[in-house]
């Protein structure tokens, strides 16, 4: 009989071993504000500690966005140029509801739990978050349905066109009283207890939790039988048809999952900035995501997180050194990374890992610290 083929028994020890890299990163990020606080002496909620927390919050949110993009281009091999539409859709839904619906609702109803605590803003927040997810899913379904029969460049062009349509909608002066058109929505009245300026540390941990939960959910998805089907479909659609799978179904599932996480990231981003602007739906946003995913390594999930982190921190450093010309330097760095790490940082690392391991083994044998061992 074969080994148990299903993953019914998920032992925590196994998960911890397999995800050790990500868990170490999480712990380090969790400790970061306190370490910063110790080193610089600036308070947890002000000065340089606060500033870098802000940078990392943006990184956490962008990392989720990059992961969702990786699901499409890395795992499913669907080169969509419309990812900003999901992100912007989630962001605008959150901002619109909090600006136009939240205050009206709060003025009419007051929801309390038995203890007497007022949870009206919490309800508004949760409802808006759910609505963002639903809108992102609807946009995802629209993308998936309209592009189902297209391949390659035609598909990429259609996704770009759909995203541009949403970009134009966001900028349209017809809806200026709701969306603010070119200006976008600013000063979104987000719940006071979530205010990222006032409660920076709290928002930091919420954003970190958002990243960690998203990572594990997406990881669970890619490791699931459905995830394997998606990888196999990327490799060869016809072979999947032969064994009885409809590739279109799995394409739709991937699109919906990716748009869901991108939409949630958008909602988080609009909370963080207390705004939603047309630039969030623009092609530039998609290109930035693409850079993050390629930098880190397509189809690795952890790669896009690292890519997002690099882009977020590097752009900040480069801005400090080179001012407005920083994209030029970043572009050069990007070219060199693509030349020397063609599969991205994580992808190339995984490819070279056996060599490094073997080299380390040879080194230890040379030192005689370990008897030769045949694998």
């Amino acid at each position, binding site marked *: *009989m*074969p*080994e148990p083929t299903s993953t019914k028994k998920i032992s925590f020890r196994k998960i911890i071993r397999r995800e050790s890299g990500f868990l170490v990163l999480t712990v380090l990020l969790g400790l970061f504000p306190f370490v910063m606080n110790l080193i610089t002496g600036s308070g947890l909620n002000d000065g340089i500690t606060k500033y870098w927390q802000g940078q990392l919050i943006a990184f956490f949110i962008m990392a989720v966005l990059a992961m969702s993009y990786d699901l499409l281009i890395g795992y499913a091999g669907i080169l969509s140029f419309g990812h900003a539409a999901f992100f912007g859709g989630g962001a605008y839904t959150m901002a619109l509801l909090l600006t136009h619906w939240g205050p009206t609702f709060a003025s009419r109803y007051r929801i309390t739990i038995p203890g007497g605590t007022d949870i009206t803003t919490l309800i508004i927040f949760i409802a808006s978050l759910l609505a963002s997810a639903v809108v992102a899913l609807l946009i995802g379904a629209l993308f998936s349905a309209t592009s189902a029969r297209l391949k390659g460049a035609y598909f990429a062009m259609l996704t770009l066109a759909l995203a541009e349509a949403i970009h134009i909608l966001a900028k349209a002066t017809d809806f200026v009283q709701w969306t603010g058109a070119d200006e976008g929505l600013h000063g979104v009245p987000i719940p006071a207890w979530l205010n990222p300026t006032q409660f920076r540390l709290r928002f930091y941990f919420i954003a970190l939790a958002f990243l960690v939960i998203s990572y594990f959910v997406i990881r669970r998805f890619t490791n699931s039988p459905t995830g394997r089907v998606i990888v*196999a479909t990327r490799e*060869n659609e*016809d072979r999947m048809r032969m064994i009885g799978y409809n590739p279109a179904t799995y394409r739709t599932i991937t699109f919906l999952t990716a748009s869901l996480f991108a939409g949630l990231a958008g909602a988080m981003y609009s909370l963080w900035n207390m705004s939603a602007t047309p630039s969030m739906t623009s092609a530039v946003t998609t290109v930035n995501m693409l850079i993050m995913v390629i930098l880190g390594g397509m189809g690795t999930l952890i790669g896009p997180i690292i890519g997002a982190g690099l882009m977020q921190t590097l752009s900040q450093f480069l801005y400090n050194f080179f001012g407005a010309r920083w994209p030029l330097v970043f572009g050069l760095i990007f070219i060199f990374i693509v030349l020397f790490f063609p599969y991205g940082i994580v992808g190339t690392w995984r490819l070279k890992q056996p060599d490094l391991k073997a080299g380390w083994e040879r080194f230890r044998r040379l030192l005689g610290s370990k008897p030769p061992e045949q694998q």
Partner: protein
Amino acid sequence: MNAFTTNQSPQPLLSVENIQTFIGQFHILEGVSLTVPANSITVMLGRNGAGKTTTLKSILGLTPPREGRVVFDGMEIQGKRAFNIANLGIGYVPENRAIFRQLSVMENLKLAERKRGDLEQHADFIFDLFPDLKRLYKLPGNHLSGGQQQMLAVARALVPDNKLLLIDEPSEGLAPILIQQMMEAIRKLSATTTVLLVEQNFIMASQLAQRYTIIDDGKSVHSGLMQDLAQNEELVHEYLGASVRTAKSGGEQ
């Protein structure tokens, strides 16, 4: 074996009636008919490019026929979509080792499940046919040799309860010892399923199959019992001349 000597059973598992298939603007199949009685091995013979693979693909709907009928298990299936046809219980083993290289042996097999537990149910049978796969169970597909990939491709078609297996050139490019193993495996699995085989190796085909259909230039030109064909040297030479010679010289090496 008695079932095959009574020439045509009233209801064959698969019957293909005069199908015409185009690929792009090219008229590839110009009238292929064949019947596959249940619980037997039927082999399609013919020169390279005669249309044997296209016939298999037309049955499965990967290259849907423009005209003609394909009746499987009493149901007309031409015009249905490939994955729906496969789900009716047709397993396809294409030529060129069509496995998923980025997935492990286990994942490749697991993928072919149509209902939960298919693999557990058939694992003993599969590992009995191909003991190598048990040893390689967790390796990724791209670590397998050509022969092992071919075995995995056949094994994958055995995971669900398929009524019919379409197997395209299972011996192609295999070492002689592996050809023997593959023949043995196909013989064993034909005890429980029906097989439609494409095979260039005439010796292998004649030892395995009970029935044959010869395809030539996109048309089916002859069919009948294998034992009759083996005695009809004229026919063999007319349509399979080249491939018989290569099969024989291959066998002598």
